[in-house]
């Protein structure tokens, strides 16, 4: 097992040790108190009956104070201990939660970049969140084995009063129950996986169809779409039912073991007298009952292991090779060697054009270290990009991605992403240069307005301009703008480009621009054309 997740969980267990130990102690106390409570009650009643039958004198000689007080004490202890156990185990789980997610996030961010970015798709993200939720709940269940151990200990202790056979039978019942439950848990793994798969299939089907509402309407396909989704829905529901049925076996096993343990203890301790036999029977029943939390966690074991294995597999990657940090100048030159061949001096404005799918965006992402560079493809200040640490590369570029890519949060959250120490003046300045200041000022909470999931409350053009303002703020020597004016009307586009030109003139930043539109490319000094048929060519552009 690769150690990352395992060691992360181990570290959290160590950190939460005190709470977990407390939870385990309380769980053990609950189980032991339950066994003692019922066992003692059984003994008390039966012994009291015998004493009562012996007449008033025998009855008065019977020490009833101690057992009856103990019974009440045990009832209170059990309640208090259960409260303590719940609180401690949830405390541990919540504490772990606050550390596991940041740790996972760091691990993903540090993974080789292609691997890291494979998490950034909707389905992978949803799956991952689910898995993390699953492994966090395990912290609540860590006390379950201790409850079973304490039940076993106190149960065997009490039934021993009725003889070794009774104690052995009780222990055997509990042991067999756990073995059977373990086997059953293994059989539950397949239905669990089936549920996961069916869930994914249903989500995919629905997402694809919901995106195509207009087509569904026009071609009268709503019923057809509903049928397709229904098929997936049925597959999911069937898988879940199969899983629930398998769970039902746990109930049967538990009740069976409980009944047999009580009866066996009673019969096997008959020679020790009615009072002890009563004690043994009830204690044996509660011993098996004390395994209930462990059974529950066994029933979950399959999905827990699945989740752990999946996360471990995702994180199971050698860390990227250590690369020597190379000092870069404040304004590095870019040399593109393949497929283009050209030399871009600091402060230059360059447009990258060519048919869609030719690899313009790929080139931009390679510069940012978001794709592995091939050796000999690009040089930065004369150093091959493939040998540079991503950190060094990213320091050189401020990026506007093609799909804007905003955080769910406020306008400010999004801007501060690129420069956390920027003050409001800098923020407004960047917004102004991106022609978004008036719009943000009109928002009810200005910079602190919530823009929704991925900026859903903004229009497409506004999202793009917010992403542009974010790139401006970063103060890197090169701006990488991927389609900055797509979705803008001509007047706004003019505005954006004019302000961009004067901003660039003031900051002296270089610009590498990808666009299909003539207006932005016209401001560039140089036009780089990526073209499959004619091969890459570089040609002077029209300076604005």
């Amino acid at each position, binding site marked *: 097992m690769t150690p990352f997740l395992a060691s992360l969980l181990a570290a959290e267990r160590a950190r939460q040790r005190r709470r977990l130990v407390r939870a385990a102690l309380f769980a053990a106390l609950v189980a032991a108190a339950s066994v003692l409570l019922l066992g003692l009650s059984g003994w008390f009643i039966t012994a009291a009956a015998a004493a009562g039958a012996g007449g008033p004198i025998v009855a008065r000689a019977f020490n009833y104070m101690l057992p009856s007080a103990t019974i009440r004490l045990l009832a209170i202890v059990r309640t208090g201990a259960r409260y303590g156990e719940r609180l401690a185990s949830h405390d541990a789980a919540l504490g772990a939660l606050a550390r596991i997610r940041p740790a996972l996030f760091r691990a993903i961010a540090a993974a080789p970049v292609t691997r890291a970015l494979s998490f950034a798709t909707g389905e992978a993200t949803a799956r991952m969140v689910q898995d993390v939720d699953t492994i966090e709940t395990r912290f609540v269940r860590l006390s379950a084995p201790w409850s079973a151990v304490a039940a076993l200990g106190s149960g065997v202790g009490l039934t021993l009063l009725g003889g070794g056979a009774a104690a052995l039978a009780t222990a055997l019942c509990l042991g067999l129950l756990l073995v059977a439950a373990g086997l059953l848990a293994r059989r539950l793994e397949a239905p669990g996986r089936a549920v996961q798969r069916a869930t994914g299939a249903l989500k995919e089907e629905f997402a694809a169809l*919901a995106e195509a*509402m207009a087509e569904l309407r026009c*071609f009268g396909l709503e019923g057809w779409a509903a049928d397709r989704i229904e098929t997936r829905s049925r597959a999911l529901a069937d898988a879940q039912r199969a899983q629930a049925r398998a769970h039902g076996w746990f109930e049967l096993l538990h009740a069976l073991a409980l009944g047999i343990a009580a009866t066996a203890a009673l019969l096997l301790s008959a020679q020790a007298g009615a009072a002890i036999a009563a004690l043994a029977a009830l204690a044996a029943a509660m011993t098996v009952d004390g395994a209930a939390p462990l059974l529950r966690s066994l029933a979950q074991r399959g999905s827990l292991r699945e989740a752990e294995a999946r996360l471990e597999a995702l994180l199971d990657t050698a860390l990227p090779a250590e690369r020597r940090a190379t000092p870069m100048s404040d304004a590095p030159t870019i040399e593109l060697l393949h497929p283009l061949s050209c030399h871009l001096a600091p402060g230059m404005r360059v447009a990258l054009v060519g048919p869609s799918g030719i690899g313009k965006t790929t080139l931009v992402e390679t510069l940012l270290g978001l794709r592995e560079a091939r050796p000999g493809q690009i040089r930065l200040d004369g150093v091959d990009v493939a040998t540079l640490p991503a950190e060094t590369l990213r320091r050189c570029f401020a990026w506007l991605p093609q799909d804007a890519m905003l955080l769910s949060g406020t306008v400010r959250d999004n801007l501060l992403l690129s420069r956390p120490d920027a003050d409001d003046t800098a923020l407004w300045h960047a917004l102004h240069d991106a022609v978004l200041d008036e719009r943000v000022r009109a928002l009810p909470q200005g910079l602190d307005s919530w823009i929704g999931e991925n900026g859903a409350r903004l229009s497409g053009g506004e999202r793009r301009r917010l992403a542009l303002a974010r790139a401006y703020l970063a103060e890197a020597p090169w701006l990488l703008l991927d389609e900055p004016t797509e979705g803008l009307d001509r007047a706004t586009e003019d505005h954006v480009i004019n302000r961009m030109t004067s901003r660039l003139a003031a900051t002296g930043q270089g610009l590498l621009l990808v666009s299909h539109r003539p207006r932005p490319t016209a401001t560039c000094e140089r036009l780089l054309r990526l073209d499959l048929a004619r091969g890459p060519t570089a040609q002077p552009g029209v300076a604005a």
Partner: protein
Amino acid sequence: MTGRMNAIATNKEMAQARRRYLKAAVADGGRTRQSTALLLLDSIAAIGFAGGLAGAVVALPSGVAAMLPYAALAALSGGVRGLFAMLSARMGAEGAHQAKLRLRHRIVDAALHRAVGGTGTSGTLMSAVVDEVDAIDGHVARFLPARQAAALAPLIVLAATAFASPVAAGILAATLLPFILALALAGGAAADESRRQFIALARLSGLFADRLRALPIVLAFRAEEREAQALGTAADELARRTIRVLRMAFLSSGALEFFAALSVALVAVYAGFNLLGLLPFPVPERLSLGQAFFVLALAPEFYGPMRRLAAAYHDRQAAETAAERLSAIEAARAPAAPPTPALSERLPGIRFEHVTIRYPGEDRAALSDVSLDVAPGKIVALIGPSGSGKSSLLHLLLGLAPLSGGRVRIGDMDLGELGSIAPFAAWAGQAPLIIAGTIRDNLLLARPDASPQEIAEAVRAAGLGPLLLKRRCGIDSPIDARGGGLSGGERRRIALARALLKPAPFLLLDEPTAHLDAASEADLIATITHACAGRTTLIATHSARLAAIADIVVRLGEAE
């Protein structure tokens, strides 16, 4: 103060609305009743178990042989209990199976017929259709049977207890009142708190998911460490708040436990003292060992059903949280459209008169006061920045966007009369629907009864020829659901071919050339020009070159 009172009142109303919705959503064909019946049988078997144990203890002095029948009864009852519990779980799962299928059917129907806007993104719709429908599982499978059983099973146990010892039954009944109060507390204030907690946890998961989604940009701006810390801070804060809430919630469930344990202890002590004849007060009964033991063994069963109910409370909360979102989606379903009347003309025009579109919950109108006359058979290009309402205008015609002001005439009919022009329109957009299957399957979606000649004609007109030549099986080549191997241009052409297959007087094109390079765009524009012939066409586009084929170009969003 009044504000707060109002808030409480609305909260209460909302809670009631949630419950009503949930009740209607899960109403099922008696599965709950069967599941409940099995739980009641479980309680009856518990009586057998207690009776068997008591009988065996009483028979003990007469030897093991005399104990055996009672021991057998106890063991058998134990096994039968397990059987009933398992069957009840199965029955519950069966009920949940049915309820989920029915509910999901309704939600999918509502999602597919939703009036656009207000009801959320396709992402939230997806989680409603899948995860939130699943959230009612535990409610149907566990909570409902547990609630019904909790009302009856204690009475059965109480009756059996009273048969052996009326006073012990009285003790149990007396502890019931504080127990129910504690249960109400656990289910009332604490439940509300933990529901909020439930939402907060979901939001935290959402934050984690969001930062994973935006990972490229987080990496590009070297913000990974800051975002990791922010995640930690948010989780820490939540942990602190949660543990406060849990303290309360566990306290109320602790109260449940306490009364359960206390009543067992009281019964034990009472029975003991009764047997000893040392009770400090007179009682009208003298217990035998058998009666006393029976009562003691049965006492925990009295609270069992109610504890099961308390344990299922979480299921109910999950379901109620889901119910809120699900009912909102169902409420946003467009009313069932009356059968669309036939058009009065073969090729009508479209006239927009002072049309305003405002999506529910939005401050700004997506489109305001637009007037436009599209003569029959003409092409109109709608241009303007994103968010200027081009797509909304097309969606309006399909009943996917609300008409908030003005009116729309289709020939000499009103759009309101028709509801939608969908039956008379063909559509091609920038992200066409591609299904797993052959290219032919994808085309036939538009008209399943199209003849091979008609398909061939549409393929030719849409310029799909080169694509089919590239593929080994031509039009019967398989494509996967993601449209793997198809370029952006090829997907648009499939959509166009589909649109051409439908002999509709209206053609609606939404950004049919977006994100294509100049050469592919020019090719596609030629195809589109052909496709528009003989139809009244509306094209929403950013492309000046595509707009150039139109008879009229309308610029939206610049009047303001």
